[in-house]
């Protein structure tokens, strides 16, 4: 029995180090190859020894697909390909291919240069790994080999994010990666056609959340930022360099412009300018509005957002009282003013500049940190969001958080409604949840099973889900046979389902369905005709011709749907069954009727003989 098997090595009832193995029709595909932000030990990478203990991974995997450039989806890639060893193709979209190596290099620097880790992948390994990448276009059908094909759909989550359909013959799986079902200020909404996969593997980060309207969230965000800077506070917004950063930059940029604000906005890393450049060059991946207007104004060229100045971070709290109103031009701006907004990386406050700035500013209640996205367990971001106000930092130092902590979901993930919507769009036979928390998944699983009546699974890491499939078998039918059948299907009497009869010729992997006659001819075989002739004795004193005529009218009255004919030579035919009155036997009161038919007319022939056995109805004399 054919089946589809799915084993998450990461992201099974968890968020982080997404890595899902799929076996479909004998092909093995690995979906994503991420790292886990919550761990610093072995657990940060998926356990590839699950695939094979000895031997190269290349022998066990037909391809690897990366859904987008976030490190929890691609962070383990150089480790996987260069240190464990994989030489097969790695598929990702063009923007992902462009941005992925930069984030990997960034990640490597933090791990090796800052934390001093040994046995980590090198810059060269990142380069070598990227050489194995094959870039795909949206909606392009990529033939991995003769049987396995993949196709990318727009996912909206970040620049270049894609959902992938993996297809072998008539069996298919769709993996969503991370996606967003509502367009935002710089990206469009995820979309997939009604491709009816056997299985849809979907992220479920916001499995239980139904978000309020985006407008409200944005208004709320702007209000909080505005209030804080107005009272002279600083706003820290931890973000990842690409993704929400651009979204929130566009949001603040337009607000600053509209309100004519002069308070500075900074972006913390050197990566940013480069990052924005990617957005400018990959305009076709952004939303419709940006695409339409980019010639006049490229939305990613910011006027109000400047490169970060360290002196600003070192200024821990308000020193100069800011002016009351934002429109006041007498306020000294820039570094002298303490008010301001900083976007800093990374987004979960687990390392780097955002954490440094956070430590400097945390003590002042006038400041505010706004967490615009999801935080993995174990990160500082997660701790402060769950209400912790005393944080133990390295060196047993305790950091007291006095600044305001706000959480605002600007993550470009689908919420529960969005997930249900996507399931509805694709119409899968089954759904499998990954990239979420077990408890929330449980809720969504029930909802999907009840509302959409689709089986839903949520395997933990290392747990395998097996789905039996029943793929239909494609064969070639000879056009003659098909047309004959279809023409008869159009006849008015063909109300009952009709049976098509033919011969399937199987030669190597070439399957053809042809008419029996053609099959015989192709194989150089002659037809063997099997014919039956039965002697039916009838009591009738009349002449043969008259007997034949009586038989004719009798059959004509019984067999209304059949072609009954009386031929000039005195014989009677019913379709191709031949009836002939033979010379009288010894008994002049008995006539012998010869009924003759071929094997192909057996039903009719046997029916006629048994009918005639009962004799002819009494004719009016």
């Amino acid at each position: 029995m054919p089946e589809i098997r799915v084993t998450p090595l990461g992201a099974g009832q968890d968020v982080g180090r997404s890595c899902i193995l799929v076996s479909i029709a004998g092909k093995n595909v690995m979906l994503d190859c991420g790292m886990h932000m919550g761990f610093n030990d072995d657990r940060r990478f998926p356990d590839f020894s699950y695939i094979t203990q000895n031997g190269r991974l290349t022998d066990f995997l037909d391809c690897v697909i990366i859904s987008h450039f976030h490190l929890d989806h691609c962070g383990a890639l150089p480790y996987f390909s260069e240190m464990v060893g994989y030489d097969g193709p790695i598929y990702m979209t063009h923007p992902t291919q462009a941005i992925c190596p930069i984030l990997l290099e960034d990640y490597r620097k933090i791990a090796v240069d800052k934390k001093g880790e040994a046995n980590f992948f090198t810059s060269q390994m990142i380069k070598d790994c990227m050489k194995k990448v094959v870039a795909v276009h949206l909606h392009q059908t990529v033939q991995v080999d003769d049987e396995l094909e993949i196709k990318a759909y727009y996912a909206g989550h970040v620049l270049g994010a894609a959902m992938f359909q993996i297809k072998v013959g008539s069996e298919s799986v769709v993996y969503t990666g991370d996606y967003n079902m509502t367009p935002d200020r710089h990206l469009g909404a995820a979309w997939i056609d009604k491709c009816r996969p056997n299985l849809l593997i979907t992220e479920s980060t916001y499995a239980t959340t139904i978000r309020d309207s985006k407008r409200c969230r944005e208004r709320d965000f702007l209000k909080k930022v505005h209030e804080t800077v107005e009272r002279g506070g600083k706003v820290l917004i931890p973000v990842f360099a690409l993704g929400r950063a651009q979204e929130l930059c566009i949001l603040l940029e337009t607000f600053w412009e509209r309100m004519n604000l002069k308070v500075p906005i900074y972006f913390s890393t050197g990566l940013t300018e480069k990052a924005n450049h990617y957005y400018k060059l990959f305009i076709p991946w952004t939303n419709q509005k940006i695409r339409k207007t980019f010639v006049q104004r490229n939305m990613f060229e910011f006027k109000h957002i400047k490169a970060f100045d360290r002196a600003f971070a070192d200024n821990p709290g308000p020193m100069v009282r800011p002016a009351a109103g934002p429109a006041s031009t007498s306020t000294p701006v820039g570094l002298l003013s303490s008010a301001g907004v900083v976007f800093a990386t990374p987004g979960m406050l687990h390392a780097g500049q955002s954490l440094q700035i956070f430590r400097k500013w945390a003590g002042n209640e006038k400041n505010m940190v706004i967490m615009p996205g999801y935080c993995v367990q174990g990160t500082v971001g997660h701790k402060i969001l769950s209400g912790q106000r005393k944080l133990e930092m390295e060196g047993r130092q305790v950091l007291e958080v006095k600044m305001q902590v706000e959480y605002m979901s600007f993550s470009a993930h689908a919420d529960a409604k969005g997930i249900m919507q996507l399931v509805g769009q694709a119409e899968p036979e089954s759904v499998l949840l990954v990239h979420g928390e077990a408890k929330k998944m449980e809720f969504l699983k029930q909802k999907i099973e009840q509302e959409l009546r689709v089986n839903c699974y949520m395997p933990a890491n290392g747990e395998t889900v097996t789905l039996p499939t029943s793929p239909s078998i494609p064969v070639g039918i000879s056009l003659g046979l098909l047309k004959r059948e279809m023409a008869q299907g159009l006849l008015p009497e063909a109300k009952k389902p009709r049976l098509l009869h033919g011969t399937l010729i199987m030669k190597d992997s070439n399957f053809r369905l042809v008419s029996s006659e053609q099959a015989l001819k192709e194989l150089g075989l002659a037809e063997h005709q099997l014919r039956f002739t039965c002697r039916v004795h009838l009591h009738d004193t009349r002449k043969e011709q008259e007997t034949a005529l009586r038989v004719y009218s009798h059959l004509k009255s019984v067999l209304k749907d059949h072609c009954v004919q009386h031929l000039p030579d005195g014989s009677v035919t019913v379709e191709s069954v031949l009836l002939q009155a033979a010379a009288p036997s010894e008994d002049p009161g008995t006539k012998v009727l010869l009924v003759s038919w071929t094997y192909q007319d057996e039903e009719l022939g046997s029916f006629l003989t048994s009918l005639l056995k009962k004799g002819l109805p009494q004719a009016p004399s």
Partner: protein
Amino acid sequence: MKLYCLSGHPTLPCNVLKFKSTTIMLDCGLDMTSTLNFLPLPLVQSPRLSNLPGWSLKDGNAFLDKTELIDLSTVDVILISNYHCMMALPYITEHTGFTGTVYATEPTVQIGRLLPSPLKDAVEVSTWRRCYTMQEVNSALSKIQLVGYSQKIELFGAVQVTPLSSGYALGSSNWIIQSHYEKVSYVSGSSLLTTHPQPMDQASLKNSDVLVLTGLTQIPTANPDGMVGEFCSNLALTVRNGGNVLVPCYPSGVIYDLLECLYQYIDSAGLSSVPLYFISPVANSSLEFSQIFAEWLCHNKQSKVYLPEPPFPHAELIQTNKLKHYPSIHGDFSNDFRQPCVVFTGHPSLRFGDVVHFMELWGKSSLNTVIFTEPDFSYLEALAPYQPLAMKCIYCPIDTRLNFIQVSKLLKEVQPLHVVCPEQYTQPPPAQSHRMDLMIDCQPPAMSYRRAEVLALPFKRRYEKIEIMPELADSLVPMEIKPGISLATVSAVLHTKDNKHLLQPPPRPAQPTSGKKRKRVSDDVPDCKVLKPLLSGSIPVEQFVQTLEKHGFSDIKVEDTAKGHIVLLQEAETLIQIEEDSTHIICDNDEMLRVRLRDLVLKFLQKF
């Protein structure tokens, strides 16, 4: 399968393919050479131009009158191969009752939108035939569905169409139209040269039954590389002598390559101080758009985007103020204008656009040069109304499309069963009738078409894909007939929906109803539509007789006949004639007996 040929212009094709149940239009180019029949539209009324006698009209407007060949409202889809081949689109989508879909790539649409057409840009002028309004153009463009290379698009479940990179321009495509067993390739405007677009995808064209070949180079004798060299040296010569260079061109396409060449050339030639002006209402858009289609560019340019840097060096020319672009000669340009300079502007026909102004302005001085690079118009005819002309004229047509040598290489590579092409490609050009190398040479010879012809394409469909449901497949009993060949007889119910065919297991025979109602005789009449298989094989008489004996028949007598044997069962008054290819059982009306004998005979035969 038929091909309706609506255009006779080999580089501006318009054909309609009827394939299975679909009607597919391949390109809808508009022949604009007839604009040369008109006088230029000058910026300022020119007494000289307006006193010229009117041109005699050639057979103009080729496309628009030839549509009685086929009812265009029956066209299901239109496939566009590049931005030059879509100028008749508004006519078809807005004036013919067309209700289908148009497929094109994103760069094709975005750049096609920018390209000038006399019909769009000169609608006010009464002497020019007015075809469509801006609204119609926009409405036509809104009917386009964007597609990517190698995207498989299903049409009504019957046919699949796929665009492939053709290497000629940004987003330019060839198309594959195929069903499960037939494949037509439509090759239109392709290039094997390495310029800025993604290279041509040749491999996917293999195994075509028919390859329709259009859009070859219009200047088969000119080598584009040599032409670019000549372009640069003439440009340098003129500028060094204090003259100006005018390049009449389209706002997109070869201009990107020319700017790239100049980017490399001007410094080495010591011309870095000479300003380059690009004047077109869409100059800015064209330059901006060229930078955002990374995915449609050649590998080198793609890798630049990964850095991230703009893929085309004209970004740097603009940044360093070497290249300046203006929407028109009005406004900023007149302030910035410095001579000597190089001006790129349209239209290449010299009949409208800002180029007319520069011809008037610079035509009188022999220091200046006009360099023709676009191959679409005869430069002599283009220049005719400006004669007498003192300025130098250089003809460097740059057409990167396939030449005949490349075509024959391509055909050898992809080996289509049949080639179909415009008749112009099956004979040498009229002006060079001795050049037998300037025509398509293939085996079997290419089928040629001319305008308003209908070709029956030479292949017959024999097979269609059908799916066998797994339950049915499980019930099949294959038997090996010859080594490597197995057979299984199939009796199944055919379901057809959306042009997809499916075989399902036959319904189980209905349980006989135990109703006590007396049945009428006719209720028992069998459904003769239940087909029995055919039989094959032969019956060895001796073994057959042994089998009969084993099954309790005695008193068996065998007689030889001319063609076989007769087996007599005397007791049962039954006679069985056995020949090589037939068996005939003649017996009394005893159904039990007949069925027993039948089953014994069938043991020796194979069913089909």
